[in-house]
């Protein structure tokens, strides 16, 4: 069985001592930032990117991936204990999880959340392993035409399935594509929109852009809101859930895992969509829906499983096709490129120990999370006592040092400052910055494939519709855009994404 060979190869990579260590570092950092509401995985990963340069590619990706799914774990801990969702993905867990905590059942709620996450993580790891091979095989047959259509599908789907107005997000994608143009054109050698700045010749680095728009702009906006006092007053008694709890939670856990896995593969479905959909599903299936919102254990198990499964399967398009499903995966692409690896289907065959090592590390990482989260829950919660007035200057400083560290240039720090102001403007006019980051990362690929496709077809754009795979991909794009215009779908989407 090729699958088992691959998984074994992956496990032997993931179980190397240094990779276990980086995995542990990743999940610990991830849990910490998941607990702290002021900072999310995107600026954290952006911040650590420059320092992964000296690591092996596998170690670097293992650590960064650990931060991502570790943050999902940490976010649910604070959601249950203090009703503060550390990450957007754990907003749903607040509903029933915190209600359970109020009834004195914080222990079982935490345990169920952790067990569901672990179960989902394990299943999702297997799903990734099974799906990766056929997808990568398919992608190997792609030419520039199919690649262009696939990139378009990825960008459009990310916009349609994510938060916020579709029109505004589309505009942001194009803005990102435009920023991606900056630099020396690889084909003609002409400097495009560099404004005579030598640092721009290699193109706009996306780390300062991400840190400015997601890290600093968010801080500025947070400081404008009145501060909230968080009270941590939960005593934890027994962590072990009763047999009845487990019995009630198990079906929800399984359903959440598969729902989350399916949604996670879709571009844009990364973090927020799976838990919301799972909660809605559990509520619909329940014999007595009125229990939801009053401490129903299914309302914790389902969304938590969906959340983790989705976080992990969102790696599938990245690992097999080289296409990021969301802004976070775009950063992962950046991590690969810093290592000199061009993301795409060839990575699977050329660097099998990298791909399978990362996949297997998700399982070891989930096991570590289970161990460090449950017994140490008190420690994580005490991190919430760090006041924001101390937290944010530290984040500002780390953003500055991290950005400077990418290429030891003060120019990147100025660029980050510019992006922070821009990001603040976007928050003020109510636009999501994530599509811009996707556009920025995918822009050069999109242009190159478009140019090649048009060269092949002698400038005839109908080539995108006459090739079957490309036509199907673009057909899906058209369907999605048409569906967005229908008022019924629009209303459903609003309900599904409403927080």
């Amino acid at each position, binding site marked *: 069985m090729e699958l088992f060979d691959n998984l074994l190869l992956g496990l032997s990579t993931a179980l190397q001592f240094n990779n276990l260590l980086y995995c542990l570092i990743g999940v610990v950092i991830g849990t910490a930032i998941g607990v702290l509401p002021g900072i999310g995985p995107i600026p954290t990963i952006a911040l650590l990117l420059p*320092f992964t340069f000296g690591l092996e590619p596998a170690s670097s990706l293992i650590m960064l991936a650990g931060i991502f799914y570790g943050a999902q774990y940490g976010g649910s801990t604070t959601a249950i204990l203090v009703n503060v969702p550390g990450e957007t993905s754990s907003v749903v867990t607040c509903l029933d999880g915190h209600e359970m905590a109020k009834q004195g059942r914080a222990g079982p709620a935490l345990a169920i959340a952790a067990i569901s996450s672990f179960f989902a993580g394990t299943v999702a790891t297997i799903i990734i392993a099974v799906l990766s091979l056929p997808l990568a095989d398919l992608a190997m047959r792609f030419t520039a035409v199919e690649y262009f259509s696939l990139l378009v599908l990825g960008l459009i789907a990310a916009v349609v399935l994510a938060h916020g107005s579709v*029109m*505004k997000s*589309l*505009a942001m994608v*194009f*803005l990102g*594509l*435009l920023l991606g*143009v900056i630099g020396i*054109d690889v*084909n*003609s050698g*002409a400097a*495009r*929109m560099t*404004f005579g700045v030598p640092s721009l010749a290699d193109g706009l680095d996306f780390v300062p852009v991400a840190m400015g728009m997601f890290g*600093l702009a968010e*801080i*500025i906006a947070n*400081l*404008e809101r009145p*501060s909230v006092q968080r009270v941590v007053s939960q005593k934890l008694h027994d962590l072990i859930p009763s047999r009845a709890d487990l019995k009630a939670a198990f079906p929800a856990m399984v359903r959440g895992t598969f729902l989350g896995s399916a949604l996670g593969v879709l571009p844009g479905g990364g973090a927020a969509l799976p838990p919301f959909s799972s909660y809605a599903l559990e509520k619909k299936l329940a014999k007595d829906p009125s229990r939801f919102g009053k401490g129903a254990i299914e309302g914790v198990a389902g969304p938590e499983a969906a959340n983790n499964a989705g976080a992990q399967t969102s790696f599938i398009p990245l690992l097999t096709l080289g296409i990021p499903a969301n802004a976070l995966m775009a950063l992962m692409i950046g991590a690969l490129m810093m290592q000199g690896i061009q993301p795409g289907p060839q990575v699977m065959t050329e660097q099998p120990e990298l791909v399978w090592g990362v996949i297997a590390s998700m399982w070891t990482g989930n096991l570590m999370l289970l161990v460090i989260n449950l017994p140490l829950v008190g420690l994580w919660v005490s991190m919430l006592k760090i*006041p*924001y*007035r*101390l937290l*944010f*200057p*530290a984040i*500002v*400083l*780390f*953003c*500055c*040092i991290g950005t*400077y*560290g990418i290429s*030891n240039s*003060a120019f990147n*720090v*100025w660029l*980050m*400052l510019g992006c*922070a*102001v821009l990001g*603040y*403007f976007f928050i*003020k*006019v109510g*636009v999501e910055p994530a599509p811009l980051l996707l556009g920025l990362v995918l822009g050069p690929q999109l*242009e190159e494939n*478009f*140019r090649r496709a*048009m*060269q092949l*077809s*002698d*400038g005839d*754009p109908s080539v995108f519709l006459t090739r079957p795979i490309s036509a199907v991909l673009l057909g899906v794009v058209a369907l999605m855009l048409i569906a967005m215009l229908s008022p019924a779908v629009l209303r459903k989407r609003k309900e599904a994404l409403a927080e």
Partner: protein
Amino acid sequence: MTNLRLGGPDLGFGAFLVLVAAGTFAATWNLPIGTAAEMGPGYFPWAIALILLAFGLFFTVKGLTRSHAGIEPMQWRPITLIGIAVALFALVVEGLGLGLASLATIIVAAWASRESRFFEVIVFALFMSAAAILLFIKVLALPVPLWPW
């Protein structure tokens, strides 16, 4: 809703996109565009700028014709002080070293919040600078000067 007519979110975003499109045209006017089969370096930027212009006009018209809740009033303190803190870091780090740059950044940034307390900030800034030096220079070996001398 006092500022119903002046500067709604859609109008602001639309005007911004129109400006970006205009700026792109201005910055790339001398790049050859080429044909669809043989694209010049100007082809892609121009295509995107045209699309952005369309989006910009759409949002501008929408912002002008529909009523809206207006933009939340802006507070100057956080954005100015965070901005100065970052700018200070960029100006100082190469000349005066990471130690002083970290101190300055933390102290100025902390000022952005009304809740910061003077002595706490000083102590915290000293602590964070030491931590930053230890982490980034000693452990991660970032090639940046430590002190001005």
